[in-house]
């Protein structure tokens, strides 16, 4: 008995209806609205029937001369540089260490490394703000003991981004570790046994076997990290409280500042469009590069 296609279609539409409604409302419509808003001079919320003014490309043309935009752009790029590759390498190293362990010890060690990932960002902020506190943090006591000068980590522009990058790696590394562990487990043990018979050293085994076999996972982790870190806001916002937010601006923070602190919806939307395009271009480029790399190996 074969059901007719029309009935299938009807059922399918019923099944996807809630999803389509939600996506239309909170994804498609806001995306279009963002583009429209970026060509207007409009406050965040318009009181009454007052119509926003069309300003053409004004919101965009003023960006190159906008110092804060420059700060936000370069800080974001710097943050990506500080987190994506280092974070991936740290996760790989930890996964290599964990994969050697077994049983309860492995579960325990994995839990210790993974625990930060499941904590809310505000908890991560409180913990590190306290640990690295310039006056009372335990890290500073340690510095004193070691004879290193104390560093006001979250208050200098030199240390802010590296420190937030460090905390971010600590916080989100668990995710990448799990992916690497899954990848390592998928490598057949026979390959290692063969290498052992060949008397290959630890480093050679890693370089010649593990690394190439793990490359698809590594590429995946790099991609996920790259897209994630371009969108950084939470940590930068929180660690800037009581400090110098204008020096620490990143793209999403600047969108927030323009829209919610300066009530300037149009200009904020223009920045949002720029970030939107950056993320898309980076994702597409990244995707193509990875395909290229795959074909070569």
């Amino acid at each position, binding site marked *: 008995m074969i059901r007719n296609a029309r009935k299938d279609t009807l059922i399918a539409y019923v099944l996807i209806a809630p999803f389509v409604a939600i996506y239309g409302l909170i994804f498609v419509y806001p995306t279009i609205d963002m583009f429209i808003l970026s060509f207007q001079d409009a*406050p*965040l*919320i318009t*009181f009454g029937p007052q119509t926003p003014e069309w300003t053409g490309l004004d919101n965009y043309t003023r960006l190159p001369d906008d*110092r804060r935009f420059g700060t936000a752009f370069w800080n974001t790029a710097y943050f990506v540089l500080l987190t994506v590759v280092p974070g991936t390498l740290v996760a790989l190293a930890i996964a290599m260490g964990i994969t050697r362990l077994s049983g309860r010890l492995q579960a325990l060690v994995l839990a210790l490394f993974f625990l930060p990932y499941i904590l809310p960002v505000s908890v991560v902020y409180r913990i590190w703000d306290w640990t690295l*506190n*310039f*006056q*009372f943090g335990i890290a500073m006591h340690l510095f004193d003991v070691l004879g290193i000068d104390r560093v*006001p980590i979250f*208050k*200098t*522009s030199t240390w802010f981004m590296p420190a937030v990058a460090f905390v971010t790696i600590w916080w989100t590394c668990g995710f990448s570790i799990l992916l690497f562990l899954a990848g390592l487990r998928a490598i057949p043990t026979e390959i290692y046994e063969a290498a052992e018979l060949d008397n290959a050293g630890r480093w050679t085994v890693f370089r010649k076997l593990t690394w190439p076999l793990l490359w698809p996972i590594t590429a995946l982790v790099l991609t996920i990290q790259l897209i994630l870190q371009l969108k950084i806001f939470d940590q930068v916002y929180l660690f800037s*409280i*009581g*400090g*110098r*937010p*204008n*020096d620490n601006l990143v793209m999403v923070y600047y969108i927030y500042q323009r829209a*919610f*602190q300066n*009530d300037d919806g149009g200009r904020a939307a223009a920045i949002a469009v720029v970030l939107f395009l950056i993320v898309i271009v980076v994702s597409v480029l990244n995707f193509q590069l990875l395909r290229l790399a795959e074909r070569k190996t």
Partner: protein
Amino acid sequence: MKHLMGMALGATLATAAQAQETVVWWDFLSGGDGVRMKSLIEDFNAAHEGEITIDATTLEWGVPFYTKVQTSVAVGEAPDIMTYHASRIPLAVSQGVLQPITDADWEQMGLSQDDFAEATWNAVTVDGEQYAVPLDTHPIVLYYNRDLLEEAGRLNEDGTPMGLDSREGFEETLAALKDAGVEYPLASVTADGNFMYRTIYSLMGQQDGELLTDGEFLAGDNAEKLQNALSVLQEWTNNEWQSTYTDYPATVALFTSGEAGMMINGVWEVPTMKDLADEGRLFDWGAVELPIIFDHASTYADSHAFAIPANNGVDEGTAKRDAVLEVISWISENSLFWATAGHIPANSGVTASEEYSQMEPNATYSSLTENMIFDPQSEFSGVAGPMFDVMSTYFVPTLNGEMDPAEAVEEIQYELNDM
């Protein structure tokens, strides 16, 4: 007449009593003064049991507070009453964030222009209308640790620090403290430009400097005066006389733990010291007017005021409005207790009282009221306003020795006039 008015007031209160009103209150008083305000609120609630209850929340001071107010007004979710800095009122009015306090409101509260000092009254007035009810004036002062000053040999017979009358004198005190082994002769909130703004503006005032002259920022030799102020403070940092990269809580903690000899901070930390001293956990301390570093005494001050947010349904003639006005008027009348939070009450009836004139340490620094300067009245001014924002961005690097004062002034001038 007065009797009639009292009856009218009683009548409105009676209607309020029938339906218990909850007044949603926001403040940013998280310093030592917050504790005093909490107990005032408790007293109010006790005195109005069954009639009015204040439901109070303290939010993060500064930019977070005012951002929240702005968005909540825009979407009609604002509190019924909030504390507001008088310096920011022109900005708030231009954004449509506040409701005016009408003549009828003043009458109902039993308050009028005569109850306030002229400067305070003007600070809440824009285009002839009042937008807030002043509660206090809060200057910044110099806190000091008598024990440490004595060790350094820089304590006068009357228990005040030596060298408050000139830059040389004050720097001698700082140097002496350093020599006596005090790690931080002066604790300053050097990590947060918003707080340093007040010290720097005071030092500009000591040279008769102005930030805004006929619509131009830092016109004429005012830029130079700002640079002078920054240079002095940077020199203190370079000489290791001042705590660097210190955020607000740490500044207070450095002073109260005895690691810093002196501290420049608002009077609102007076209760922190008092409470610690009462528990026997603090050294012998005092507070005086800021030292004269330039030509004459001058101290930055601002006012806390009560404001009614726009777009929140607390309209005239509603029971809610009556309740809100009762809150303001009651707290204003009882602001003698608020003075124990260090502030100078705005209600002149209170400051004229015998009790107030006896109050310590307020009496010691009350002399400075003659030398107070306020923010320029402009929509760029005010806590967390655009001017604060621009200037504080450059204060932090300058005061911690990362940036040259001349360069900072140039950048500030450029950005301010670019707004």
